[in-house]
């Protein structure tokens, strides 16, 4: 089956920051994204686990965006500006999709 190369950006940030990241993506008019909840983790600021948590601090979400290679930089720049000051990680990887027009 014919597939088309795209990029997958994955942003891990603390939950309180989620809306900021989503705001950036909405402003840039990306065609879609999906947020996954993490359960536990460890970073510069120590370990955390979601169980028993009453607040949202510490708990991390991963925001996944699949988009065209061309648009990578437009999206990475503002995301990177956000995560340098705040807690977070941004990765980019290659994927192939079956419906190129969707992205």
């Amino acid at each position, binding site marked *: 089956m014919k597939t088309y190369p795209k990029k997958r950006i994955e942003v891990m940030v603390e939950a*309180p920051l989620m809306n900021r990241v989503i705001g950036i993506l909405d402003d840039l008019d990306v065609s879609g994204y999906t947020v996954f909840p993490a359960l536990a983790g460890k970073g510069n*600021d120590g370990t955390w686990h979601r169980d028993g*948590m009453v*607040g949202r*601090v510490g708990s991390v979400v991963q925001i996944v965006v699949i988009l065209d290679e061309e648009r990578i930089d437009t999206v990475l720049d503002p995301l990177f500006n956000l995560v340098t000051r705040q807690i977070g990680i941004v990765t980019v990887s290659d994927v192939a999709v079956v419906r190129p027009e969707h992205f």
Partner: protein
Amino acid sequence: MDSVLGLAIANLTTPMILFFILGLLAALTRSDLNVPEAIAKGMSLYLMLAIGFKGGVGVSQHGIDLTMVLALLAGIVLSAGIPLIAFRLLVLTTGLSRVDAAAVAAHYGSISIVTFLAASQALQGLAMEAEGYMVAVAAIMETPAIFVALWLARGQGASFDKETLREVGLNGSIVLLTGSFFIGIIAGTEGLDAISAFIVAPFKGVLCLFLLDMGLIAGRGLRDGRKNFTLPLLLFGVYMPLIGAAFGLGFGWAIGLSAGGIALLATLAASASYIAVPAAMRLALPEAKPSIYLPMSLGITFPFNLTVGIPLYIFLASALS
């Protein structure tokens, strides 16, 4: 009225506190006992809805008076003033950076609603009444401390735009607490009768399960926080609530609250936030380290208030009035 020691011992053997201690021990021995996040959040929604509603019904019964306005003002002054004192003490004694000191200070100006709940239950156990609107005072004390802390950390990366303001001001717990309070005022005694089997009868029991979870969290906070605790920080976690309580007692007495009301105001002033303020700090003061402020508030001050503080504040409030 018992002596403070008698009070403290009675407090320590209530199921509430015993479940908190069980949670603490389970966490310290690294048991895998845990409460699912959704259940913990569900219980905290329940507790805020119930306490807000009951406070509102109280106001609907007794009406609004000048003391209520004064109590709300006192709450604002305490929430805004305590961080100034806390900040100064932290900078002088602990060697925290200004950003971290400001963040910690915000926690102590703001309040912990569970500590407030525990104090309310202790008062009830002693058949001491408190003003229904104290729950509104609790709600109003959540945020001023945050704004003062951001001002203290100005020029250090504190961001403070309109969006942050909205997020801080309309955070879920404030909305639910004040919303339920107003609903309680409107629905009144009749409304309370309709739902008391849900919000009154099982309240204490739910609080037990919730405190079990708080014990687990506090215990894990203690374990994780150990390496960041210096002696001056540890001491701050114990004397700062006492300073706050002293102001709370003074203000409560000055504006003429009942003994129960004074005790609650002291408890609010003494308590440190661990939900609203940490979330606000991540947004507006991301350079501040959560690994300092969270264990301080959850691991030191919360258990201190729950076990020693509350009986002490109640004793002092009774002595005052």
